[in-house]
């Protein structure tokens, strides 16, 4: 397939106004599934976390998970939505082998939450309000694995395997209203919006929210409309595409930028946009056509007769409202102040998607500056080298423990980096790695003095230089001692001892 022609981004923005819309699916971390008592645990041996309900066996019936309803209400409230006094499930009918009943139980005309908005902070600190149309509950489908094709995709595969462990995992789908006015910020806004949703669900404690694991999935709708002269009415909305499979914050931004450039080129060349789903390819940074999607797709929705309407009491809603965490924007302002970060430092942490990790590390006892230094420094470097998310490498508790060891003098930075590698490689907690690898700093004067004596014997003129005022000459001795002791010497103590020796000499 030939690569699509792309228009320069700035040129595209001159000619067209991007119009956005997002559907974000959040997997809820309830104990059991949406409609069955199977454990809500996706992974492990295929087709083990299943009941007759998840397999859609004849005769089986769904029962709504009350915990999922409470989570959904909390999320709706955090999105500024109204909570429906009565909402209803509906059947969305279509045949697909990962859909056990060949209908998905979802909510259609009566979602549990509707009409909200979310304040999203752009990288430069400006706020943008994203309107939320609705948030509704539904069940996830199973997972298909296509075997025998070159790409792992259905085209060319010899057969497909279905794992229903994920079937019935509770989802909330958050649907925005049409988003106008993002303009050239559209890619950054997309990323910041998804990051904000992630922050909200993490603060609520209702989802693991790991995009790389599919806990949080974004479908990005985008269309372009030509700009009209001032005073003229705006052009009608263009045809949209829906990009799926966007599973990192960075991809969200890239996918939107790509689609703007791709669509703009097609429109400028006099072509038309096909209404379709498109698949994002992380490796090539491109999208490819999926299935055509028309507004007339007929899912034959009708109210799910196996379930009663969801009628939360006003008391429950108020109880959940009272328990809501601070909104992300307010929380960020508070944290920035508490941590004493500069605007730039805070934005670095946030734009790197490390706010959750730094917060947790501070909560685990580390000073904010140290938490930031390790997450945006060494851990991000290793993550980059290994093409992994920093959060997947090490836990905030381990980072905090590492910082504590440094602050107590048990480790220096150099040793700490080795300890971090050990932790990342699964050798245990920082203390366990220190013990196992024997990496503790030596500050025992006897051992240090012996090493200093040896170093001075090799460099006899150093003490004289120090006495002449060339204090930096001590560095050569410190270096030699560190080398001899494989980096484990307490450098500050070595320096003190060398200077004392020179003074006494």
């Amino acid at each position: 397939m030939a690569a699509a022609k792309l228009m320069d981004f700035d040129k595209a923005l001159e000619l067209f106004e991007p119009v956005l819309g997002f559907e974000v699916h959040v997997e809820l971390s309830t104990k059991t599934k949406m409609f069955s008592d199977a454990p809500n645990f996706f992974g492990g041996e295929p087709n083990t976390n299943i009941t007759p309900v998840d397999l859609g066996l004849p005769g089986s019936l769904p029962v709504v998970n009350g915990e999922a309803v409470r989570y959904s209400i909390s999320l709706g409230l955090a999105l500024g939505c109204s909570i429906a006094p009565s909402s209803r499930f509906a059947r969305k009918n279509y045949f697909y082998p990962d859909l056990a009943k060949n209908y998905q139980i979802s909510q259609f005309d009566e979602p549990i939450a509707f009409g909200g908005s979310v304040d999203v902070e752009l990288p430069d600190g400006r706020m943008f309000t994203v309107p939320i149309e609705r948030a509704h509950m539904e069940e996830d489908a199973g997972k298909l694995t296509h075997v025998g094709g070159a790409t792992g995709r259905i085209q060319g595969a010899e057969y497909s395997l279905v794992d229903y462990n994920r079937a019935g995992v509770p989802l909330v789908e958050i649907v925005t209203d049409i988003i106008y006015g993002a303009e050239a910020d559209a890619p950054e806004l997309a990323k910041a919006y998804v990051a904000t949703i992630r922050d909200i669900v993490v603060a609520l404690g209702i989802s693991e929210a790991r995009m790389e694991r599919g806990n949080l999935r974004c479908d990005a709708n985008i269309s372009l409309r030509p700009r009209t002269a001032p005073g003229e009415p705006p052009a009608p909305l263009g045809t949209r595409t829906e990009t799926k499979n966007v599973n990192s914050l960075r991809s969200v931004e890239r996918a939107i930028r790509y689609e703007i450039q791709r669509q703009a080129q097609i429109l400028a060349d006099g072509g038309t946009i096909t209404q379709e789903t498109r698949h994002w390819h992380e490796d090539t940074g491109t999208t490819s056509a999926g299935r055509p999607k028309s507004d007339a797709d007929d899912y034959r929705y009708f109210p799910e007769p196996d379930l009663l309407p969801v009628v939360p009491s006003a008391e429950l809603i108020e109880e959940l409202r009272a328990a809501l965490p601070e909104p992300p924007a307010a929380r960020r302002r508070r944290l920035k102040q508490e941590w004493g970060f500069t605007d730039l430092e805070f934005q670095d942490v946030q734009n790197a998607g490390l706010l959750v990790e730094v917060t947790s590390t501070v909560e685990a006892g580390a000073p904010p500056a140290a938490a930031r230094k390790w997450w945006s420094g060494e851990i991000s470097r290793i993550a980059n080298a290994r093409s992994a998310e920093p959060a997947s490498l090490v836990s905030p508790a381990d980072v905090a423990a590492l910082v504590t060891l440094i602050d107590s003098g048990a480790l220096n930075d150099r040793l700490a980096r080795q300890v971090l590698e050990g932790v990342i490689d699964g050798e245990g907690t920082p203390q366990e790695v220190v013990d196992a690898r024997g990496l503790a700093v030596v500050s025992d004067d006897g051992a240090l003095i012996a090493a200093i004596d040896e170093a001075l014997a090799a460099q006899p003129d150093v003490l004289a230089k120090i006495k002449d005022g060339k204090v930096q000459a001590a560095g050569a001795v410190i270096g030699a001692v560190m080398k001899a002791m494989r980096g484990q010497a307490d450098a500050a103590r070595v320096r003190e001892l060398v200077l004392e020796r020179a003074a006494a000499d």
Partner: protein
Amino acid sequence: MARHDHELVRLSAAALAEKLSSGEISAVEATDAHLDRIAAVDEEVHAFLHTAPELSRRTAAAIDERRRAGEVLHPLAGVPIAVKDVIVTNDMPTTSGSKILEGWVPPYDATVMTKLRAAGLVPIGKTNMDEFAMGSSTEHSAYGPTHNPWDLERIPGGSGGGSAAAVASFEAPLALGSDTGGSIRQPAHVTGTVGVKPTYGGVSRYGAIALASSLDQIGPVSRTVLDSALLHDVIGGHDPRDSTSLTDEWPSMADAVRRGDVKGLKIGVIKELDGDGFQAGVLERFREALDLLAANGAEIVDVSLPSLEYAIAAYYLIMPAEASSNLAKFDSVRFGLRVNPPGGGTVEDVMAATREVGFGAEAKRRIILGTYALSAGYYDAYYGSAQKVRTLVQRDFAAAFAGVDVLVSPTAPTTAFKLGANTGDPMAMYLNDIATIPANLAGIPGISLPVGLAREDGLPVGIQFLAPAREDARLYGVGGALERMLEQKWGHTLISQAPDLAPGEMNAAQEGAV
């Protein structure tokens, strides 16, 4: 042995239960007697799709063992029961009368099965039915029709013709049925037996293969009103696995039968179900029953439910709409039949080939109807309008019950018709359920019990009582009372007048006795 069998199988479940608890007979004897009866008559009746004699005997032997050990058992422990094949059983195949599920043994039990087993009843087999409970004659079974024990050339009703024929031919004292538009009550009517559709939500649907989820209800099938009540008391009650199941505390239905009295009871005759389209012999027996009720102190009044005129039309939109979605899961991917098209194909091709071969004509007809009724652009006109009619029917019933305690009608317009008489005319077939469908639309309980034989053909006629939702006990009271009055008047039960299907069995017994 055979003579003993012949008497045992004619006992009501209540009488059999007494002999079991007194130790006069064992559960194994009771089970063997019914298995022998099945062996003797079911070739002609074809009420059963599956029996598992060894399994049933083992179940019965375990009950006997527990009784011998001094355990206090449920009063019905050891009583055999036939189970409509729409109900999933983890030890017997469950097909819902369809080729698409041929040989499928579910990995789980329906809640009603769990309750039956806990009470110690002995499942003796799965009964025949119209495919996916779609029909009024059991002729739509993929495994051949069931025959009416009163006249083997005639239909046993449907969809639960197998369960009704099993109790009518003394193959089982009790059976489970399911009623979406009359599938328990209309077979009871044409076989001279008793059948009850409980209040929607009164009995768990978990494990009943769904036809139309908002209409389906499992209920008891038997030869006496008391037996149905005893079974109802076992299977009823809240089930957390069925969200539509009611959380009510239910009174004993058996007590309601024993205390039943019609003195002072106000009974409303549904005008719309009394006259046009009803067979003369059906109406004659119906009126006699009303006279008997009046003579025993009931007040009989006429009541009109004007929206019943639209009930069948609404039903034949709602039922197929829900069925089209409920039957989507039969796609060959996870269970049941799989048909690979010649030369292979995509999963869609396999699904299509499987459904083409696996579903019968009536199932396909209703899937197509329902799919159409739910389609964008038609939803409001069809499914939406039908739901409005449903609301009107519910209001009509509420208004009627404000003035009367129970409503009454013949259970169906005609006695059993000949096999094949209506198979080419779906509309004529659908009209069989004109009197039973309204209760399903309204979610209210209904009972059918026999009131005699029609003069013109000598075939059974049933009467149907309807009560407000949750007032199932009221139906058992009036049903039990009318049954006592009729049997007093006749001097025998109606079912005792059914032809003996295995006279040889009796002869053999007599010879053996000499």
